[in-house]
């Protein structure tokens, strides 16, 4: 992609354990100089508070590298945890990849 957006697609349940992989993946992208990272949650079936905590850690890491983090394609359960914890105002969330592209490239 022209502006250097890298897309990561985690899957299954995102909790304290599984989020470790996601974190590694994001860190290696940052190391290679990526400035825009989109987490596509289409394949994520469930996320708990530990998973959310890990996302916060990732967000901090991304920001400290001067990069941006976007999330898209949340299922209803994941949306619910974001809104219950009011974290939907902290993350940049898009409905899906198409919506992200529209917003990002326009």
């Amino acid at each position: 992609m022209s502006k250097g957006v890298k897309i990561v697609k985690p899957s299954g349940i995102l909790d304290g354990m599984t989020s470790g992989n996601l974190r590694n993946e994001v860190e290696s992208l940052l190391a290679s100089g990526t400035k825009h990272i989109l987490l596509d949650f289409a394949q994520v079936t469930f996320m708990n508070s530990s998973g959310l905590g890990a996302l916060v850690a990732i967000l901090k890491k991304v920001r400290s590298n001067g990069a941006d983090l976007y999330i898209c394609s949340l299922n209803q359960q994941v949306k619910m945890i974001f809104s219950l914890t009011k974290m939907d105002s902290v993350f940049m969330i898009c409905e899906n990849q198409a919506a992200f592209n529209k917003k990002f490239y326009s």
Partner: protein
Amino acid sequence: MNEPKFSSNIITSLKPNTIIFRYLIIVNLIIGAWYLQWRINHGINWSALWLAIPLLIGEIYVYLGGLMFFTGMWRPIIRKVKSFNQMSPPFPEQVWPVIDVFITCENEPVEMLEKTAQAALNIDYPQTKLFVYLLDEGNSPEIKKMAEKIGRIDLQSYQIKAEYNRLNYHRNQLEKRLKELDIYLAELESNQQFLPNFSLEVETKSEEFNQVLTWVDTLRQPTINEDDWCKFKLALGEGFDNVIKYGHRYLSQKTPIKIEVNILSDYLVFRIWDQGDEFDLEKYLAKMPTQIDEMAEGGRGFFIFQEIADYFSYTHYQKQGNCLLMIQKYRPIGESNYALSYCQSLRETLLLLNSDYRNIQDYLLVEKAKLEAQIAEQEFKLTNLIRCRYLPRENFSRKPHLVQTGTVNQVIFSGETLGDFILTLDADHIPKSEILQRILPYFYQYNLNTGNYEPNRVAFVQTPQVFKNIPQGDPFGQQAHLFYGPIQQGKDGLGATFYTGTNAVLRREALITVCSPYFLDQDHKNEAILDEFNLVSNMSSNPITEKLNIAMRLHSAGWKSAYHHEELSLGLAANNLSSTLREKLHWADGTIQVWQRENPWVKSGLNFGQQLQYFQTMYSYFSGFFVFIFIICPLIFFFTGVIPVQSYNADFAIHFIPAFLLNRLTFIVATWGVPAGELWRSEQYAIALFPVNIQAVWTVLTGKTINAELSIKQIESGNYLSLVWVQLSLIILTIAGFILGIYRWLSGNLEQPELYLINAGWSMYNMSLLLVIIRAAIWQPKSN
């Protein structure tokens, strides 16, 4: 000067012709001083010093009194104001302040009080923001009954009735639920049925949760909507995660986690059983911060759990291990009558929980407490709708350290009233409906930066006291256009408006900040303050003292005040001598008490003008002694031939007459607009009441408590003439003096007829002043 800054809704200006009046004052004071110096240097009768010195002191007293009186009127101001609902820019009605109307009463006729209360309820102001309190000093059951009646009738008014019905319906619904809950509580123990539940056992591995999710999704019912189901799974996920992360942290992965789920008609329930150590969840939750930092990486688990669960518990059992129970209410799809299903589902929940008695009880108690709190809230709202409220003295003197204080203070600090502003009315003062609209603008200032009206520093606004039933000729001198006119306008100009207890609006915040040092000590911890408090409160037992004190403390704390010269209430005068005397005695006594306790000259925070105003009022009550001297002087001459001045010759006349005439002229100009008859009446009373003033000063200075109330009441039944025996004897003595003189003249023994005439003229003048009170004593209302 020290004048409050009002927005353009209020225009303040000097009274017209003030400049002429000021010239007159100056000339008057100079001529007066010239006369006095002449009196001191050339006018003293050295052969009768016992009489000459008191008279001279009296004249100096009068001169100083005049000096203060006239300088007190140096800056008379007039204020023009737009009504509250017509201010520009407009003040939105939603944010209008709440008003308490305090009507103080004490054994007044109920019919009269009813009129006042009714008029107060009818004041032009939003009904939901106006409350009327009858502060009854006398604990009269009739007044209480009347207050309840008026309150009930008021509830029938259209606006309030709709609100009442709405709240009452709500309350009844809640109460029904509570009753049913009680029935189920009773049924509980006898009921042994169980509802089927679903359960699953997994190992202590986080990836097992996938299996749990798949399993739980098979249990979903079509009546459960997506949102509720997501929440349920979220809570379940948090519970499960907790076991993995904490409960089973040091246990083998083989350790089983058992999950039980029940789906009821409007409750979702799960239990997660773990084998970890005992853990006090309540204690942990109590310590938990209420807010989680948005960039925190953990700590959200229980927060989410609490958001979702309507009830949860974590209980340790000897055999089965720990159980995390979560109950979540949900609104079933297609279920319209929520109230009906409440009981049904409650029953199911109870049955379900029956195996676990402790949890059931906890749950029910939580439910019950919730319902009771809701009912209490509704009831509070309902009682708040009643706009006419009765507060007997016993109610507001419950706190022992508040007993002795003034009524208004007590009510404010007893916490039973909440208005932002307080309109105080005497029981016999019927407010006009526009009273609040006319007064409230004084309390706000438009802020150009925010575009809002903001409270300013005005603590109270006083309006005139007017009586509508004054008999022909005002025998009791009750019309007060002089005080509620030039005098108050002058006081206002010097930032020292007097609060007189009725027809005034006060800002609660100001009262609280100013009076609280005297009331702060709720816990009796600080003995020093308490002593101070007792002293003040004992001193303040006279209601007048309270009024003067309130204004003086407000002024000394930097609060502003205003006098609004518009008649906004109509009072009923008592029209009998004993009430008149009692009122005057109270003022005299109260004023001198304040002076003794809180001397304005040493009170910090008052400016010179304010100090002067307060001092002048107090000073004026000492006049009694000097009036007595003025009255007695010609009498002494009649019977002994002694005069207090060297001679009443031309030299005397040259000095006395200009000073006297100028004084009169200044007075006339200062009081321009007040009917001459009324001025004369008030002057008569100022003189004729000298025994009252002497009595007040004497009792206060000798530290006795005045019991005018009692003594006057005792006399009340009998002849009023016995109330004025001093004045009556002086008049009789004067007449005797005349007769004696005439007799001497007729028998050719009168040596100095011109001296005799001067003294006769002087005593005639005195008599004409004193006669007013004799006339009042024998006055009878005209029968129709």
